[in-house]
């Protein structure tokens, strides 16, 4: 299992060709209270960097981009009734969608946990 991060604060946790995508704890803390998450339909094909979902916090609407290319194989239906899971447990119960990777080498262009931590230090 490997977890990779984007500069726009999404994560993808990959296990056996499928990645769980969500936003980082830093991202949720910056967004504040999440009130709605718009998720893509299962089966949608996303290319790396394309808009995958929209998070509505009390403050604003923000785009969530696909960290890697692939097909959406599952979305977190629990977010419909409990969007606050994104704030409470962003890397666990607050995940957004699962994506079947088309090109695992795309992961190489993303940050590992140590690099992401260093990146956060630099931006905050």
């Amino acid at each position, binding site marked *: 299992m490997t977890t990779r991060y984007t*500069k*726009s*604060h*999404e994560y993808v946790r990959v296990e056996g060709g499928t990645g769980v995508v969500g*936003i980082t704890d830093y*991202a949720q*803390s*910056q*967004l*504040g*209270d999440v*009130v*709605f998450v*718009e998720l893509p339909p299962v089966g949608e094909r996303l290319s790396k960097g394309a808009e995958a979902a*929209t*998070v*509505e*916090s*009390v*403050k*604003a*609407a*923000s*785009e*969530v*981009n696909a960290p890697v290319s692939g097909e959406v194989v599952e979305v977190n239906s629990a977010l419909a009734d409990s*969007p606050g899971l994104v*704030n409470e447990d962003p890397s666990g119960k607050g995940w957004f969608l699962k994506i079947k990777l088309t090109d695992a080498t795309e992961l190489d262009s993303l940050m590992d946990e140590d690099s992401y931590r260093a990146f956060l230090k630099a*931006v*905050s």
Partner: protein
Amino acid sequence: MSDIQTAAAVRDLVRTPLYDLHRALGACMTGFAGYTMPVQYPSGIVGEHLFTRTRAGLFDVSHMGQAILSGPNAARRLETLVPGDIAALAPGRMRYTQLLDGHGHILDDLMVTRLDDEAGRERLFLVVNAAPKRADFAHLAAELPDCALTVLEDRALLALQGPRAAEVLRRHVLPAAAKSVSAMPFMAAGSYAREGIFLDISRSGYTGEDGFEISLPAAAAPGFAQELLDEADVRPIGLGARDSLRLEAGLCLYGHDIDRTTGPVEAGLSWSISKRRCEEGGFLGYEQVKRAIEYGPSRLRVGFLVDGKVPAREGAEIVTLEGETIGRITSGGFAPSLGRPVAMGYVDTAHAAPGAQVCPIVRGKPLAAKIVPIPFVPHHYFRGDR
């Protein structure tokens, strides 16, 4: 998530006297009107919002412009630039009004408090919005050369808002003043001595709740703010909840709901124009304002109650059930007190009737919404012991 603002981007911004306190309280800071301001504290916007509605919230609004306009005839002179009845203000009373341009459009909205006269000069305390404050003051100075405009650069401004605000504040002024602070009705103001400084307190605010705005020397502000925050009934509130609170209260945000393209009548602010001003005129933009009052404006600011959970925000187009575009949202979001999205915006007057079903377009899809009277949450102003 590329729109997250980094600390580097806020480095050049102006700090209010409470900057260190905000950081110590764990605020998430953002750039607003050239200032670095707290958007939210660790408890989050919803928590802060609900706390203000049930107890009391402390807001740093020191970025707003404060000034004193004085002159032998300052009230009548200011009336040449605003449609509000300033001449009728007794000392210690305040009024909401707007600076208008020659087209009857709004340059800014402001609070005007009549202070006691001094040496035969009338004195008005003005509080204007942060972003247009320099332009406002330049406009006032240019249009009213016979008056003196003193910009109060070294004053902080705090707002204490919520049902517990009055009982908290009375504990923090001199005992002799406590009773008069509590008895002060909405839109009244006074100056209260406290440990060698003067607090200029008004019973006003931007949340729809009972509450106060307190102007005080910048140097004294952090200590006084901390003292209020030491009360269990008071928590710090950021700009995020300030926005959701004023939205629920149906209050206009300058630069969004009102600006240089909107007039006071279509904005639903005719209540702030007295009969005398309307009949006598004598202010910039009078012709346009009078025409709008007599014939009715072509569009009107209304409230929208949005079905479902998707917030409809500023810029969203409003269409009828038949698909005809009738207006646009000027501010909107999630209303924490109602647990649902609400919005305000302008629609063609023919479609502005309460109860009408309309569709805000969000990300290309129509949502279901209904035009409703504003405020969304009733005001709880203290009108005095009657």
